[in-house]
């Protein structure tokens, strides 16, 4: 329980063994970049070194603290599991979770609490966000070096990093929502960073408005949750909104459509995640968001912010999975509910839908954007199918290789003098060897090239979960098809960009060291991260689910697993082969139709035009609003205006009548009446004579009269 303390900010600290100073100081992780952002905002545009130094320094500080927090979790694990092993006992609940909460303010009897939490989920996200963020910050120093708004850029980026870290550590849905909205705001600001370009400004607005649609549902979910459970803390020693008591209460409420209140609230919150993570049908803003600078695309619209939606679903997973009958899937127990089914289907269809569109795009960043949407769909599907660990593993690996791809794309764009059309590139393999090498690694990781790359393992665990899903096999086939498409469009892109011969203007050049170094580091992790999630050593899943993981090659021997791995490998090779056969080393003219367009124009057109979703929204939602605006305008003019006109006319009539009477009386020669009238008018005019004291006098007299009436009438 939260203790009432005389000092409003005095915290009631709940330490976990062994010592928890990192938990108490966890708020410093988001605070450092936010403070840095505030300081940068005060700097002059010319102070570039100081601005970037502050941003990078603060994020390094956050990274160090995040690593300490991660280490804290690891050591807690070691202690708990060591104890279990040494004394051969089983703890019923080995959850490693430390929270700090405090009361923000109080309304009557209900309090609004905020706080932060450190658990494996938050720890791994903290490390990922601050690490990837740091690399991208370093990269941006090179990428944005020539921009005149350099300091503004780092101000926004720092604010973003801080808010994102805040999302990760919040233990309160309200705090999370606040950070979530700041994240949305910075996304808006950064997409429209080059606001002189009308397209950038429009894209920023589009992103903001589209994500707001999701956030409205999110807010509804928050309000509903608060009204049902009276708390917005996730975990609070058994009385938080994601813990036993609250869940039982929520499950007992029925919300219609076969959903419990828990599921319905979960779905509302999921709607927020749909907006943020660009899931169907709110995906339209993400491709347009590529109008922002490339580091922004890498950090916000690939690695972290869009993943925040996935993270949110993972965070409120207990809410969505509440009341599920448990059944074994793979190695872990896992259940499914109506809410999770929705998540799964949305994810799987988004995965295929976006992958299809990506096949026919020509903008290097747009392809990656659709690929991001598609991969986010995988994550969502993974969450719905296999639980937190499956989805989160893909999130982490994806963050690294997608950031790598985006930074690589930025490097390519930079090297080709701000050219983004892949048809006007080509042959960069020789001009930009470092970029090519790292890009190829990222591309293979994204495709899920077998055994070596991290993407293979994370995608594989999603496919495995899909295969074991007993409600429908639909998602499995969709996801496998998506994997094929992924390999295909990435091959197409790489062939266009790096193979063939140079088709652009001027000559391409390799990017500076400050940009290629982050690429190399990210490439390393794009490969290495796979190690922690192989079936032989499922450490990541164990980490998130608080179990021990042992290295055991028998993990591969699970029935069906070998076949699955073979299938997915074959699919990847098929995609790669198809792509190479269509596009490999051909270097077509920029104006020439695409290879696929030539063979299947009926397929190409809808893909190129993004399945007409934007146009659909244009003729439905936007047209509806335009129509509605016209209707209200008409109402304003005709109905309300008409009423006003009628009233005016009536008063005019009344005035005419008065005038007639007046004229009549004056003409009649009633001088005395006339005098009285004018003196009466004078009397009335004195009421509005601009004399303050008169007003006051009348006011006081009226009060006297009213009070007298009141007292008189209430006499016994």
């Amino acid at each position: 329980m939260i203790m009432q303390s005389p000092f409003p900010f005095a915290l009631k600290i709940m330490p976990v063994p062994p010592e928890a100073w990192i938990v108490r100081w966890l708020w410093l992780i988001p605070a450092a970049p936010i403070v840095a952002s505030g300081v940068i905002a005060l700097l002059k545009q010319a102070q570039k070194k100081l601005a970037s130094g502050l941003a990078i320094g603060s994020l390094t500080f956050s990274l160090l603290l995040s690593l300490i927090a991660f280490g804290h979790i690891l050591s807690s694990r070691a202690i708990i599991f060591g104890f279990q092993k040494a004394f051969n006992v089983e703890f019923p609940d080995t959850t490693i979770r430390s929270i700090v909460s405090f009361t923000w303010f109080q309304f009557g009897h209900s309090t609004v609490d905020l706080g932060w939490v450190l658990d494996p989920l938050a720890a791994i996200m903290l490390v990922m966000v601050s690490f990837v963020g740091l690399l991208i910050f370093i990269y941006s120093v090179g990428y944005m070096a020539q921009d005149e708004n350099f300091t503004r850029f780092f101000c926004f980026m720092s604010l973003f990093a801080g808010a994102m870290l805040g999302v990760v550590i919040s233990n309160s849905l309200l705090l999370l929502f606040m950070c979530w909205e700041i994240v949305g705001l910075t996304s808006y600001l950064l997409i429209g960073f080059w606001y002189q370009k009308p397209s950038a400004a429009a894209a920023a607005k589009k992103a903001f408005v589209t994500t707001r649609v999701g956030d409205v549902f999110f807010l509804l979910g928050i309000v509903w949750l608060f009204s049902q459970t009276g708390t917005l803390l996730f975990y609070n020693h058994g009385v938080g909104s994601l813990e036993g008591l609250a869940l039982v209460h929520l499950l007992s409420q029925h919300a219609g459509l076969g959903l419990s209140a828990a599921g319905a609230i979960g779905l509302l919150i999921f709607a927020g995640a749909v907006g943020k993570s660009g899931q169907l049908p709110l995906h339209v803003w993400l491709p347009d968001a590529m109008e922002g600078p490339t580091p922004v695309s890498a950090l916000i619209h690939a690695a972290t912010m869009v993943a925040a939606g996935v993270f949110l679903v993972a965070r409120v997973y207990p809410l969505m999975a509440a009341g599920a009958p448990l059944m074994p899937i793979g190695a872990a127990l896992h259940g499914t509910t109506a809410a999770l089914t929705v998540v799964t289907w949305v994810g799987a269809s988004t995965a295929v839908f976006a992958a299809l569109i990506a096949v026919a795009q020509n903008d290097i960043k747009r392809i990656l954007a659709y690929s991001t949407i598609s991969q986010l769909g995988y994550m969502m599907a993974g969450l719905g199918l296999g639980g937190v660990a499956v989805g989160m593993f893909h999130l982490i690996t994806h963050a690294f290789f997608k950031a790598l791809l985006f930074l690589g794309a930025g490097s390519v764009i930079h090297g080709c003098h701000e050219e983004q059309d892949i048809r006007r590139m080509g042959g960069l393999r020789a001009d930009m060897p470092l970029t090519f090498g790292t890009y190829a690694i990222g591309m293979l990781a994204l495709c899920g090239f077998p055994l070596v790359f991290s993407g293979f393992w994370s995608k594989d665990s999603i496919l495995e979960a899909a295969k074991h899903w007993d409600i429908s096999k639909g998602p499995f086939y969709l996801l496998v098809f998506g994997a094929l498409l992924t390999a295909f469009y990435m091959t197409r892109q790489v062939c266009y960009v790096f193979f063939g011969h140079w088709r652009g203007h001027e000559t391409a050049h390799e990017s500076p060291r400050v940009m290629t170094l982050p690429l190399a580091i990210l490439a390393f992790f794009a490969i290495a991260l796979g190690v922690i999630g192989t079936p032989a050593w499922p450490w990541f899943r164990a980490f998130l689910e608080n179990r021990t993981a042992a290295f055991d090659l028998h993990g591969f021997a699970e029935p069906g697993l070998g076949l699955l791995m073979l299938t997915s490998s074959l699919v990847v090779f098929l995609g790669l082969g198809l792509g190479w056969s269509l596009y490999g080393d051909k270097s077509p003219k920029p104006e020439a139709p695409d290879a696929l367009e030539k063979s299947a124009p009926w397929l190409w057109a809808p893909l190129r035009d993004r399945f007409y979703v934007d146009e659909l929204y244009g003729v439905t939602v936007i047209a509806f609003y335009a129509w509605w605006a016209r209707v209200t305008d008409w109402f304003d003019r005709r109905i309300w205006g008409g009423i006003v006109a009628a009233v005016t006319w009536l008063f005019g009539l009344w005035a005419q009548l008065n005038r007639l009477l007046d004229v009549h009386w004056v003409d009649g020669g009633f001088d005395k009446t006339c005098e009285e009238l004018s003196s009466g008018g004078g009397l009335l005019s004195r009421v509005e004579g601009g004399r303050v004291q008169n007003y006051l006098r009348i006011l006081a007299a009226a009060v006297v009269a009213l009070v007298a009436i009141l007292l008189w009438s209430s006499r016994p």
Partner: protein
Amino acid sequence: MGVTTPLAGYLLVAALLFAIGLAGALVRRNAILVLIGIELMLNAANLNLIAFWRFGPHPEALTGMMFAIFSIAVAAAEAAVGLGLVISIYRHTNTTDLDKMNRMKG
């Protein structure tokens, strides 16, 4: 006088002070004096609040006290704005006489 309870005494003093303040606001010509009258009225209200707090059933709830404290703060703001207005009007019309200030325009 027949007043037996202390509360009634304080309330009557407050009522009288309020009436004095009101009279001041009503009968004087000078705008500043009107503001002074209003301050007196506010103070009378404060006295009421404190008296009710002191003799009310739940003094530990501090409601009346809090009202008085907030009212003091608000009165300070009111005085600042009011006097600023008076000075501003004085710059326009060169007078603070309310009887001469009867044009509803600058």
